[in-house]
């Protein structure tokens, strides 16, 4: 008897209730979906860093090939785009190189100390924050 009574008084959910539930669910999902583009942009950032590190290495190898005496001190390479062609991915990377004499404590020196510090910085724009990021490699080269 109890069971029959229960069946007769059974009440479902109203349409309004369902709609509200669905709306809340949608809002929650939209929030969660933001995580995926964010994840992809982090992935892109790691790729950018790898590319930037190879571009910095590129310049260091070039300077190494000149030999100690021929590496100009100062700023042999002012910040510039690595390609003028917008279709080339290198257009989105900029590079600056600075060379200084350093003393035994690795602080900059005006005199020729027989040791030069090469500092290469590669600039690129982060896909997510649209801000400029940089990657720096610094190395030393000594007189032979």
């Amino acid at each position, binding site marked *: 008897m109890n069971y029959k009574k229960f069946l007769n008084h059974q009440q479902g959910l109203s349409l309004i209730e369902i709609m509200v539930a*669905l709306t809340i669910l949608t809002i929650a999902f939209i929030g969660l*979906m933001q995580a*995926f583009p964010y994840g992809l942009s982090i*992935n892109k950032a790691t790729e950018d860093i790898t590319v930037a590190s190879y571009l910095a290495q590129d310049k260091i190898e070039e300077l190494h090939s000149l030999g100690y005496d021929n590496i100009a001190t100062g700023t042999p390479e002012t910040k510039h785009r690595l390609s003028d062609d917008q279709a080339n991915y290198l257009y989105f990377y900029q590079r600056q190189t600075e060379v200084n004499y350093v003393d035994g404590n690795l602080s900059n020196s005006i005199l020729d100390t027989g040791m030069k510090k090469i500092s290469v910085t590669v600039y690129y724009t982060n896909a997510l924050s649209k801000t400029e990021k940089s990657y720096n490699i610094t190395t030393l080269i000594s007189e032979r």
Partner: protein
Amino acid sequence: MKTIKKLTINKGFTMSEIIVSIALFTIAILLVGSMYILAQRSYNKGSIKGELVQNIRVCLDRISREIRQSVNIITALPETNDDLENPPAEEIFFQDGHNINQITYLRYYLNDTDLMRSHIAYYFDEEPETYVTWDSVDQFGDPPEKLILTNRIVGEYFNTIQFWGADNLIHISIKLTKNQNTVNIDTSVYCRN
């Protein structure tokens, strides 16, 4: 009797109720489905990109190290990469600097989308144990025999690999492609020997 009565007063759903419930159900399924597809796409794209970058790193590390060790780069490279008359080389052939007792050569080239690494030696029939330089000739002016010691795939998904440069500074440009995802990397290697 009781059962029959119960059956007759049984009320079903109206058409509009069915339609509304199906519509709501569809919306819910679409919502979950699109979420699933987005997750799947992001994962694929992310893993492909990661794979490509990793592939380049592995190959570049290996090529750079071996070029640095090399004492003789045999491929004639153009000075720049924008000379249409003299385009960048798409393979590189150089002497292996790893073992200076035996002269052997390394060749990196593309076989479709695979990067191949060949370890090659040259010898004359009279003395098969002694390896000679690739351009040497015997007393009759004949070239040496070629012996491929190993020939292996060392990288996948290659679209382009280019070499150019002068004065022992070799520029390398690599482009990898997999399912419309592309990764480019440019760098240089200075042959210290």
